[in-house]
């Protein structure tokens, strides 16, 4: 996406937003955005504004999520949805190749299906950062995932400057939101009060500018921009929690035997929900399946988690036998060693691991507990 001055901005009303969705569909994109399903707001295919969760919000807390009614008809008045865009760009189950026994030997064929060209409507600031982090994982020169890169290159991103923060949100402290920054085509800010329901649209790419030019819109005024800025400022002031990042890498790396790891291990179920919902966790496992006749086989890639025993299984057994060892590995990688590996934190402050932990373990609380009493030595190695 070519960078453009973010000065380009316009204002759409609800009809304009409808026109935006239709224009994306007309260009061959499969448009996905927030919808209400199973008592939650999730990302799915949409065909118009009527599919969006007008008047719905969520109430999130550690280990708790409830869908609730809003007093207004906001279309984007909710916090992070249960699963991020990861499942579109990095699908949970993907058959990589198939092989069959031919007359002259084995015949391999790629099984990766051509993905639709996605347009994502409402990519929150934290999730935009998460996509950028997964780009570094999957599009690195030395280990490129062609299918991911193709899906990513084809995607049209309509980002969202958040107008709502949840109890488990902490993007401000991670420096990842609530204002969407990075590679987007267009970015929306929902402007809703008694007198209007409009969307400030900022342009982030040539493709975004071209699309916007064909929509019914008006030019953004200084008061529109000020209103959008105040939406973001209000959201930033409503973060449910925060994570102190100063010196965090050194703190975690120098406290592998802190007693807090034993304490959190008492509560951790090792069920792997945190890693599944994390928008940056990227680990996969491979399963090879042969058929009954022995004439063909396939290799399937599936989302995996560092909380399983198999994940660290090498000859003779699993390296990380205890919940303590596995939780410490996950959190230390996410918040500390990720810097060494990818040049940034692996956490974007979306809070999903807190909300969707069945027992409500809070990564910000765990980090704070270690910070409160650093360099206390605990028990055995996990």
């Amino acid at each position: 996406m070519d960078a453009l001055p973010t000065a380009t901005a316009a204002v759409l009303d609800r009809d304009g937003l409808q026109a935006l969705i239709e224009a994306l569909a007309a260009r061959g994109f499969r448009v996905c955005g927030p919808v209400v399903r199973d008592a939650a707001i999730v990302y799915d295919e949409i065909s118009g504004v009527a599919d969006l969760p007008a008047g719905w919000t969520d109430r999130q807390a550690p280990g708790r999520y409830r869908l609730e009614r809003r007093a207004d008809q906001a279309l984007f008045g909710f916090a992070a949805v249960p699963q991020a865009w990861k499942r579109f760009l990095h699908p949970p189950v993907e058959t990589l190749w198939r092989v069959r026994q031919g007359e002259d030997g084995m015949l391999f064929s790629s099984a990766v299906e051509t993905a639709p060209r996605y347009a994502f409507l409402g990519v929150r600031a934290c999730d935009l950062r998460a996509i950028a982090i997964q780009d570094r994982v999957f599009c690195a020169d030395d280990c490129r995932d062609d299918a991911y890169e193709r899906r990513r290159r084809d995607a049209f991103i309509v980002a969202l400057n958040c107008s709502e923060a949840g109890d488990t949100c902490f993007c401000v402290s991670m420096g990842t939101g609530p204002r969407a920054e990075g590679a987007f085509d267009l970015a929306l800010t929902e402007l809703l009060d008694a007198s209007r329901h409009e969307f400030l649209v900022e342009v982030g790419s040539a493709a975004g500018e071209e699309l916007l030019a064909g929509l019914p819109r008006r030019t953004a005024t200084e008061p529109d921009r000020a209103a959008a800025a105040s939406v973001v400022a209000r959201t930033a002031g409503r973060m449910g929690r925060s994570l102190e990042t100063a010196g965090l890498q050194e703190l975690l790396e120098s406290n592998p035997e802190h007693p807090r790891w034993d304490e959190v291990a008492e509560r951790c179920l090792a069920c792997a929900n945190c890693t599944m919902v994390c928008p940056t966790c990227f680990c996969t496992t491979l399963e090879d399946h042969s058929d009954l006749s022995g004439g063909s086989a396939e290799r399937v890639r599936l989302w995996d988690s560092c909380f399983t025993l198999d994940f660290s299984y090498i000859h003779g057994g699993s390296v990380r036998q205890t919940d303590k060892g596995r939780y410490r590995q996950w959190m230390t990688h996410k918040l500390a060693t990720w810097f060494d590996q990818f040049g940034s934190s692996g956490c974007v402050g979306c809070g999903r691991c807190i909300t969707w932990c069945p027992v409500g373990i809070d990564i910000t609380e765990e980090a704070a507990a270690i910070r409160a009493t650093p360099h206390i030595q605990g028990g055995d190695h996990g």
Partner: protein
Amino acid sequence: MRTKPRLAVWKFASCDGCQLSLLDCEDELLSLAGAVEIAYFAEASSAMEDGPYDLSLVEGSVTTAHDAERIREVRRQSKLLVTIGACATAGGIQALRNFADVNDYLAVVYASPRYIETLATSTPIAAHVPVDFELRGCPINKVQLLEVIAAFLAGRKPAIPTYSVCIECKRRGNLCVMVQGTPCLGPVTQAGCGALCPGCRRGCYGCYGPMETPDTAMLARQWSAMGVASRDIRRAFHSFNAWAPAFREEGEAHDD
């Protein structure tokens, strides 16, 4: 011509549901019959051939002295013995007798209990003979069963994960019913069913038994915080896999 491996399917105390999962493999039955010789499968065929067998699939638990003897003979006749289902791997729902006096059950169920010869307990096959692989589920998943048979034929390890239902649930894109307020055994239960019940907005019933590292105590504490009564926690753990050690002990830790 290479002789085909000989397959046998055995029934002990069970409902036949797991054997039916094999018959339910409609699209794959012909290839299965092409790959193995189905030498003994009383549920499907009256042609019952003598052993030895290369692969025995065993359904059901041991609840009679006669069956305790019979499983030894099956083991003797089988190169590889794979148990299928919760009864064969954990004693099944009938292992509830293990927590009570079986004679009390007999008196309630049968008009003339004096004709019944039964053991005081229902026990898994592995309590009687060495088992090569245990396939979980109540009932088993036919895709997993085919995977085990295909792996046996290829001489490879079957890809049967032992992690939690949650991983399958999230891969499917299900919403977590537990976080939305419905008690669920998924976090301590082994995957394999494809997260069937959470996919229908129900809590997991634990049909596949304890996962590899089940923290049942913490899950029970969370259920309790959600308002689930002690008796209901006990009953949730004491169902199809009541005699699996992790579920047995957790259930016993809660009053009935």
